[in-house]
């Protein structure tokens, strides 16, 4: 059988084996001991041609209910937003997507500059001094931030709000096992981190305090108050995880004195794609610049004085520092960072603010309608684009009914917190229309009533 990705002809093969000085390619594998050599054929599916494989996989994809065929109010960390058409056109430029990490700056100025621009945009959004080239996702970025704080302060306790994304919280628990950091979970009260408990738990062993802004329930945590509490311990850091779209309208964590701000740029130009790949970001202060995990791009000049960009401060990284590196991260999410950069450029200063505000306003409208329909919206605090609705019912069952009406319902909070069983976390982004919101409220009312 012929394979279109393999150009070697029979004649090539013969000539090459002659040059090598062997009779057959088997001789090149003779150093694999007989006992561990694989004999026979791999028991995987036989190859398919492009047309038939595309047909099969297209059918498979069609089995999935998707965010385009249905109206979705599901968020909980992954959001369905407007994605400008140009995003995919840019990231489909194969000079970008078929390149590797820009180790050779002379032929990688495009990627390096794109990352430099991404770093700048993240700094602008978060109000921080320094941002890296991206992380796997918001959850692992947060876990890396926690470990950084422990390493930097040489303290072994972190206070983590239970109002952060439950899967980020779970990832933190996994990541701290290596350096042996203790995680103290801080309860939430009325949808916000319990600040009294936070103040009580904070002590001289505390490396950092972790909150999400806006938090998992969509509520806007009072960062100024959190900062005041953290300030009681000189060394303790304030770490926030933030939806960067929210920062188009909300005061950025940097202005409240955050030491590290992380999050996921999925909201900018990256489709949900079943949870990944998305695009973690990592921003911090100048003081912590040399502790940042992952790659950083810096501006410099070439021998002729022309502006250019290079990977820099590499002494932090695994390929130089090996077991003393600040992190083991190597691959990041560069192509998705590019997608987010294009989406952010497309929005620009005005569009970002507008889109961010639209999320709040449409969610405010949803809240109004829910309450008018007699449905109970839990938590009275300020919100971004998510609300918790107390339906006092079986959320999976309600979602099944909604699905029949073409609606993907919200997230079942009972999954993570027994106290919140019967509560649904709903997201309302700028793409939801008045008509869709009205229908959703009506269906929920009908199911509830």
């Amino acid at each position, binding site marked *: 059988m012929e394979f279109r990705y393999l150009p070697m002809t029979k004649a090539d093969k013969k000539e090459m084996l002659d040059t*090598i000085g062997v009779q057959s390619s088997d001789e090149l594998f003779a150093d694999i*001991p007989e006992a561990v050599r694989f004999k026979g054929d791999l028991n995987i599916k036989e190859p398919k041609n492009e047309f038939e494989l595309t047909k099969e996989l297209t059918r498979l994809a069609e089995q999935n209910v998707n965010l385009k065929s249905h109206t979705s109010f599901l968020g909980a960390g992954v959001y369905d937003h407007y994605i400008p058409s140009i995003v995919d056109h840019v990231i489909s430029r194969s000079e970008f997507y078929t390149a590797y990490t820009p180790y050779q700056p002379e032929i990688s100025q495009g990627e390096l500059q794109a990352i430099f621009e991404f770093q700048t945009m993240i700094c602008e959004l978060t109000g921080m001094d320094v941002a890296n080239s991206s992380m796997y996702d918001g959850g692992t970025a947060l876990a890396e931030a926690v470990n950084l704080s422990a390493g930097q302060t040489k303290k072994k306790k972190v206070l983590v709000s239970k109002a952060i994304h439950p899967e980020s919280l779970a990832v933190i628990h996994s990541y701290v096992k290596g350096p042996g950091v203790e995680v103290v979970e801080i309860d939430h009260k009325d949808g916000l981190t319990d600040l009294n408990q936070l103040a009580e738990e904070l002590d001289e062993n505390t490396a950092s305090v972790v909150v999400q802004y806006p938090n998992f329930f969509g509520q806007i945590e009072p960062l100024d108050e959190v900062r005041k509490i953290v300030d009681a311990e000189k060394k303790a850091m304030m770490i926030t995880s933030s939806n960067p779209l929210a920062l188009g309208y909300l005061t950025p964590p940097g202005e409240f004195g955050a030491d590290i701000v992380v999050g996921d740029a999925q909201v900018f130009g990256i489709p949900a794609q079943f949870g990944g790949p998305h695009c973690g970001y990592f921003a911090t202060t100048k003081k912590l610049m040399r502790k940042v995990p992952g790659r950083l791009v810096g501006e410099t000049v070439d021998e002729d004085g022309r502006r250019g960009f290079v990977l*820099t401060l590499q002494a932090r990284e695994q390929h130089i520092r090996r077991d003393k590196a600040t992190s083991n991260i190597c*691959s990041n999410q560069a192509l998705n960072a590019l997608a987010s950069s294009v989406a952010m450029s497309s929005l620009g200063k*005005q569009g970002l603010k507008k889109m961010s505000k639209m999320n709040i306003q449409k969610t405010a*409208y949803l809240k109004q309608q829910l309450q008018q329909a007699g449905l109970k919206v839990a938590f009275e605090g300020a919100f971004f684009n998510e609300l918790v609705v107390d339906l006092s019912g079986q959320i999976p069952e309600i979602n099944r009914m909604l699905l029949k009406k073409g609606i*993907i319902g919200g997230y079942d909070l009972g999954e993570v917190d027994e106290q919140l069983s019967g509560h649904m976390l709903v997201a309302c982004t700028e793409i939801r229309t008045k008509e869709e919101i009205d229908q959703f409220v009506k269906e929920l009312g009908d199911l509830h009533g």
Partner: protein
Amino acid sequence: MANQDFPLIFELSQESRTGFSLPTMDTPEIDVDDMIGEAYVRKSEPELPEVSELQIMRHYTGLSKRNHGVDSGFYPLGSCTMKYNPKVNEDIARLTGFSHIHPYQPAETVQGALGLMYDLQVSLEEITGLDTVTLQPAAGAHGEWTGLMMIRAFHEANGDFNRTKVIVPDSAHGTNPASATVAGFEAVTVKSDERGLVDLEDLKRVVDDQTAALMLTNPNTLGLFEQDIEEMAAIIHDAGGKLYYDGANLNAILGYARPGDMGFDVVHLNLHKTFTGPHGGGGPGSGPVGVTAELEPYLPKPVLKEENGFYSFDYERPKSIGRVKPYYGNFGINVRAYTYIRTMGPEGLKKVSEYAVINANYMMRRLQAEYDLPFDRHCKHEFILSGKRQKKLGVRTLDIAKRLLDFGYHPPTIYFPINVEEAMMIEPTETESKETLDAFVDAMLQIAEEAKNTPEKVQDAPHTTIVSRMDETQAARKPVLRYQS
């Protein structure tokens, strides 16, 4: 020559110019500032560029032209497997039913996605010879850490808290010792011998009852097959340790040997290398991990299961190391890898390795006339040259790499592995034609001649790129990591 600078997108910005087209604001305007509270309404807007759509497109098209990818030209970057990235993979990953699905949709609405993941897991289990595979880790290094955490959990479950050391060969990729540290272990180095293989005597010396695992790439980063693998496995297993396989070099042995059969307990794969997920300028990747049945209870949560043809996630995993990533891994990259595996099948994958190995050996033999070959034996999918001879003439390996840029090639990996002086690590991959390999070899031979006759031509390279060598010292001493107007 500052006028040749390519502007930053911020430098194109003009107030009130727009590049967006937002959905209609069709709900009543509600004053939200009161609700948010004054202190939390942003006062100064972030300085994002204000540019038109065409300006954005020209900007990024311009940047793409200042970038070299596999589609631009040969990219023999050792240890990175820069093979062709099939276009059909991109199309499949972009199908609405794969790209626009939410991770929290009920299982019954995403059976197509879960079925694909399951079949990919089964395929990778067969390819690696391991019992169970998880697709959760986001990249190779993430997979390394995941695997090591499982090994740690295994030892601890046996009441064995004394195993604090992970052995790593001196030729190993930097992520290996870094991952060991992040997982809470101490990295211990084992030396390579004159064959370029792990020194068995040194291995016996460093192994003890504190050994948690040995991390090994096979073929190793010198491109050589660790032929003593059975004995190494016995040494580690007899000491109660586990054998960890770094899948960075799996492209050499598909269908020829399987890590599971060699005695490895844990394997991570780099789907963005061997299985054509594109490298994306640095990512995203995907780093599935496979384990033996013994380690299966420790897999990260959740675990994908199949019952009577229905796929769902199992969260009831009391011994699990926990979550390593939100959601279920880099699904979009996994779709690309799956498409590739289905395109190649068993016969195709075996040919991949056969041709990758022939290509590497062919180049090695042609190049050994002018470059030092530290390990003169058949290589696998990549090989190491040393620029020692050229260094004596005042031409460093870095210069050779920069000179290659003038010929339109991405240079090999240089100064790695660290146990070879002036190392050049060349990995052609199977998707390159003989003509391409020959042209590259000819360029390398020409550079070797230049090193003898006109060394300044090499020392001053590159001559044809849009920028010359960068001042990296300045970049590190006075870091400028963002644009400021």
